[in-house]
């Protein structure tokens, strides 16, 4: 395997592998919960980056796939009695399918028009689910506490969910690298720089963009199922929160868009900072102000994102940080 000789491929993987492995080994609950929030952010930001970073299409409503996939996975799990693993994959597949259909239509739009359309899709999905009785309508669905018994009780169930999320996150990172370094990915980068020129050069832009959209929609669906299973309930208000979409964008921007490492650094940095400020005795009353000020400083002085900045300034690291 040639890719294993490239640090850009294995570095982010090893980081997540060691991190998740350490959490599993130490087996401490508080640590698992923090890691869950961070890994979820890494997974979501990285899957958004596959679309945003490589094709340059800003999807404001990417959380719709987290919500729809989560809803479907949760439905399969609680109403149809599917196991968690199959439900999560089912949730992901539905998200990918919807993305394929929607993508054919909205990916013909560019720039601000595409961004606005994605917000519209999110709102439409929320309105649909609120009135869709099999999904519980406005009230949503819940799993009985006894459902956790299948996984050895609530404690082990949470560990199973964590392990699954950990693996999913690694798969997202692999997918992100493979897309970037394939011939297909080069086509995407060409679309990002100049879509018309790319089409003249023979890149089939509509098809390439739709496939990218499908890939970047699959993983949020899987992660959504895991997240809502862990919470024990799902309702429209929680599943389609626009602010989570925006936070995903911020994480990608902070870390450096269009890089594999960027969303990892951005998501961990952002969520860790928020978590730290939220629970620190000194900052807990002012956490939003401090987080805001730090974001300002970072974006004013490091507009390319952290990974982008390092790549631009340290020649030697260019091959290490993809």
């Amino acid at each position: 395997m040639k890719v294993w000789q490239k640090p850009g491929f294995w570095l982010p993987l090893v980081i997540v592998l060691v991190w998740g492995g350490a959490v599993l080994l130490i087996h401490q609950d508080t640590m698992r919960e923090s890691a869950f929030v961070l890994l979820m952010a890494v997974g979501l930001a990285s899957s958004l980056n596959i679309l945003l970073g490589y094709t340059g299409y800003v999807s404001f409503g990417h959380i719709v796939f987290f919500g729809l996939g989560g809803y479907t996975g949760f439905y399969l799990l609680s109403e149809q009695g599917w196991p968690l693993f199959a439900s999560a994959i089912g949730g992901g597949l539905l998200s990918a399918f919807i993305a394929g259909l929607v993508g054919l239509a909205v990916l013909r739009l560019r720039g601000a028009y595409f961004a606005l359309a994605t917000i519209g899709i999110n709102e439409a999905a929320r309105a649909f689910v609120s009135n869709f009785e099999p999904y519980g309508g406005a009230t949503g669905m819940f799993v009985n506490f006894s459902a956790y018994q299948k996984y050895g009780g609530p404690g082990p169930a949470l560990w199973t969910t964590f392990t699954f999320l950990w693996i999913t996150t690694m798969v997202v990172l692999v997918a992100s690298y493979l897309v970037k370094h394939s011939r297909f990915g080069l086509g995407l980068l060409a679309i990002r720089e100049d879509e018309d020129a790319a089409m003249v050069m023979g890149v089939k832009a509509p098809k390439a963009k739709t496939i990218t959209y499908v890939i970047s929609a699959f993983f949020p669906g899987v992660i959504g199922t895991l997240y809502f299973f862990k919470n024990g309930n799902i309702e429209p208000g929680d599943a389609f929160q626009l602010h989570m979409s925006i936070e995903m964008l911020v994480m990608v921007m902070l870390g450096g868009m269009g890089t594999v490492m960027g969303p990892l650094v951005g998501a961990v940095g952002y969520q860790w900072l928020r978590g730290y400020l939220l629970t620190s005795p000194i900052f807990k009353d002012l956490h939003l102000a401090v987080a805001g000020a730090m974001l300002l400083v970072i974006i004013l002085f490091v507009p390319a994102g952290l990974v982008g900045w390092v790549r631009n300034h340290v020649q030697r690291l260019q091959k290490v940080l993809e």
Partner: protein
Amino acid sequence: MKRFGVGFVFVIALSFIVASLSAPPGATAAAKTVKPAAAAAAKTVTIGFTASKTGKFNVEATRQINGLHLWMEQVNGAGGIKLADGTVIKVADKFYDDESKKERVQELYTKLINTDKADFLISPYSSGLTDASAVIAQQYNRIMITAGAASDSTYKKGYTLVYQSYTPASRYLTGAVDILLKLAPKAKKIAIIHENDKFATDVVKALKIYAEKKGLNVALFEGYDSGTADFAPFINKIPADVDAIMGGGHFADTTTLARQLYEKKINTKMIALLVAPPEPKFAELGDACISVVGSSQWEPLAHFTKESAAKEGITWFGPTGEEFINAYKAKYKEDPSYHSAGGYVAGMILQDAIMKAGSTDTAKVKAALDAMNIMTFYGQLKFATGPKDHGLQLGHDMVYIQWQKDKQGKAMKQVVWPLAGATASAFVCPAR
């Protein structure tokens, strides 16, 4: 693209700062951790919870926490909870901001239990956040008293350690049907227009079943999206001979609905709406608020006294309504709302259970909670103990208010139901 990124994150960062600065100043000052005075012989129990100090639940959650803090201050001020074996229990609290969002609720509760060693838990405000936290409470064998979590479904998931202090959503408006049948025994038709969200939908689904059971015909049953500002399409659908209009959702939409019902001169015998009517701000509607009925978890006017408890043969516990209102006003310089009372009562429930259990052991306190049946200034408290709905509030009932005119013609709230606590009798909606 780069420029977009800079501008974008810039705006987000600014919005954080603005959100943080726009939190009411009282929120930070009042939310400081209350520490009990050190006492050598006293044991201290830690009560853990998350508070929505920022975000959409800020106002309600702040009042809830204010109520809880008042209770803590009074308990510690009185020397703590004295147990039969002579141990004195002081209470301390530990809490974090959940930003009114679900994402970190489970993380924070896990931290409260494992790192901060919380002995008992109070729920966050709202059913959604409570659902997420209850899983954690049950998993770590901690008792959680919920406040501000009305949805019935939370208590139907098989938890055995989660106890509700609010009247469940399914009984939020059912009393309005009783009032209607008392006012107009011949009433036949009602119309229900409700916000299409979890809380309001839970309420009206139960309302519909109850109304049909009482022989009423639900002629219209329509949901509107959260944030709706124009109700004309719904109001136009209301049949002309309808006897009552019920429903609503949260404050802003329900207020608009009440106003537009008045402007469109809809004639009906009764209008009963959710959430908005008990708020003092509802009076700003002027004539449109007159005769509107609303339900509330607790009202300062409502009279639950030691005498009324004795009459029903239930033990009285805690301060009287007046004592609570005066203490709350003295500490926070504002009138308590039912959220404040809910927070205070969540503490009282724990206090009574710990006293009766004579211990802070989870199993013993749980047994005391299961057996609880007390009367307080907030009303009766008693929990379901069956496996299907363990922890659901059974004793507490909603209080129904109606906006009436006082002698000077000024709008004022009167308690009209239950009759035992009524301060005025209800009247039929005048012709408009």
